[in-house]
């Protein structure tokens, strides 16, 4: 788990958000009543809330969101005993109908919010070299590749990226026999030997998509 942010880090994060708040490409979306609760955890326009550990979702493609909501619902994700944060999301998806999942995915794709600021240390130039393998699936700007089932990574919070990579590493995510894309991603983790490698690649991804 990433440590708590120091006061200075917080100030930097928050100042960063303020600086970019006005320059968004899309108009704010007003969610339908049944989807307001997504914003209670993920924040206004799904901008992410580090206290709740709910990541920024704006910028994710609808196909990926739909797939993940089903993954939560079907118990591929957010049920592993070590995945305590995933367990916070799992019941939220479990309660949705297929129709609501479609609407939720559209909602996510329609939102925009400031790009998250860096909160973690890590060496982006070391990370760039490591990212070469990742780019085969996730794209050189971490923009994602639907044909390969690989999501965009640019625009996700760095703390969230790190947590996911740790989960793929430990098997808390991507272990379910039916979760083929999750298993592919787990296999790709072999490139990242240790925590430092994870921090570095995350630091590099955080520079993309701005």
């Amino acid at each position, binding site marked *: 788990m990433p440590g708590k942010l120091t006061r200075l880090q917080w100030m930097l994060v*928050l100042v960063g958000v303020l600086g970019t*708040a006005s320059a968004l490409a899309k108009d704010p979306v007003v969610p339908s009543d049944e989807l307001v609760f997504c914003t209670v955890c993920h924040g206004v326009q799904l901008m992410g809330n580090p206290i709740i550990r709910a990541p920024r979702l704006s910028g994710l493609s609808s196909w990926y969101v739909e797939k993940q909501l089903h993954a939560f619902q079907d118990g591929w994700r957010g049920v592993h005993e070590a995945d305590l944060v995933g367990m916070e999301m799992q019941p939220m998806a479990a309660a949705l109908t297929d129709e609501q999942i479609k609407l939720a995915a559209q909602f996510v794709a329609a939102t925009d919010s400031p790009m998250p600021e860096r909160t973690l240390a890590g060496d982006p130039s070391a990370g760039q070299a490591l990212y070469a393998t990742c780019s085969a699936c996730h794209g050189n700007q971490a923009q994602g590749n639907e044909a390969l089932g690989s999501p965009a990574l640019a625009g996700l919070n760095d703390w969230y990226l790190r947590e996911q990579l740790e989960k793929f590493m430990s098997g808390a995510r991507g272990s379910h026999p039916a979760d083929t894309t999750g298993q592919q991603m787990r296999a790709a983790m072999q490139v990242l030997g240790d925590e430092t490698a994870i921090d570095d690649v995350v630091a590099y991804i955080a520079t993309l998509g701005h």
Partner: protein
Amino acid sequence: MNKNLTRRQLLSMVGAAGGATAVYNTSLALGLMSDAGAPARLDLQHVPKGGARIIVLGAGIAGLTVAYELERVGYDVQIIEASKRVGGRNLTVRHGDVIDEMGHQQVCRFDDHPEMYFNAGPARIPGHHRRVMHYCKSLNVPLQVKANFSRPAYTHDTENFAGKPVRVQQYVADARGFLSELLYKAIDQNRFDEPLSADDRERLMHFASTFGDLQPDGSYKGSLRGGYDEGGFLSPAVQRAPLEFRALLNSSWWERGMLSAENPDWAAPLMEVVGGMDNIVKAFVRELKTRVILNAQVQDIRLKSDGVDVVYNHNGKRRKLSADYCFNSIPSHFMPAIPNNLPPDYQAGLAAMVPGNFFKIGLQMKKRFWEDEGIYGGATSTNQKINTIWYPSHGIHGEKGVLLGAYAFFGQCKFFERMNPAERLQFAADCGDKIHKNYSSYIEAGVSVPWGRMNHMMGCGTTWSEEVRNEYFALLQQPAGGRHYMIGDQISYHSSWQEGAFASAEYALLDFNRRVRADATRQGVR
């Protein structure tokens, strides 16, 4: 010199023994200081109609208090509330109510009957919470006594006393008895560093023997304070045999709960609102001219030099309100995910606050079986994860009753949150069966309220660390830019108590009033 101690001498002795807190408490007891909790006379400046505009964010106790007080002196107040109901954490659940848990909405299936209610949030009010008392009195909200610590109720420990419930009275009497016996013997053997005079020794031994109800030889052999095994009315009372000393020592209740009523917030007698805690909320709503705007989640807060703009969603549209002042009770943990331009250190403070958490289960029982065991209100305590069974103080001798079937705190709550509502009720039923015979067979309906998963809430108050408190508390009490006040029990030393919410509102109002008066003076408007 006078043989009697002066008050000052007494205080310095107390100080040497117990530090500043003891001096403070003793001073209060002697009437030398006024209680910090006494409601300040607000004496707010009246303003002409159509004067300054006020926006209140969140319609919990703190928001309602600010709205009520400012409306009374002429301000134009709007209250923006994200959820579909007024009251925030002040929640009483009755027949047909929806429990807005994210992921697991529940509908309450209690009987449609005035006594069948469950205080899912606040349930007890101690008399020294002067602000709560002030508003209950002035808004005509009737109170009644609520039993909390109860001697006929049980303490239960799966690992001790063969897993059988033990009456609180017996546990307490025996704990004192054993302790007193030790004390008695220590005195007898003169085991003190300081020499005791023969008089002192005799007095202390007498104290120990009275405290623990000891035998003339200083041994403890049980006490009628622990309750009768039989008799006592038409035949001689037979006292219960004392618990086994080692079992008592190994058991956990002396640590978990035996001393809970020593805490002033839980000290008997406590009060509750007749008919349900939310009658406080209803009283405010009755008094308010403005209608709370429900289903209105705040999206953006912009501080300007002369006021505050707030954007919120309502009926499928984004709407903007401009006001001269804003009073914000939104839980701090949501603020980092609501765009705003509050000063960076202010935002950093909000982000550093850590939310607390509570979990409760309410069960409608078809029979008030606990009354057959001589229990009328109060709480049984267990080392099982439900912690507490709390019997209703209202509706005595009625047919049915709603009791509290689980009450978990902070880190304990996740265990329940991760279950679905049916699993939670089953778990609570199984725990109850270990304490009361046929407990589960009496359950007719149940609700579980995990505050960490409740919509627009996700927790209860703030657990301030000393460090964060020192760095940010005073800052957050001040209005950002002189225009935006943070309020709520989160901005108090009594988080998770309504008194904290009232106190925060009062603090903000008094500060606001000083500023308004100073401005008026500056502008020469008297």
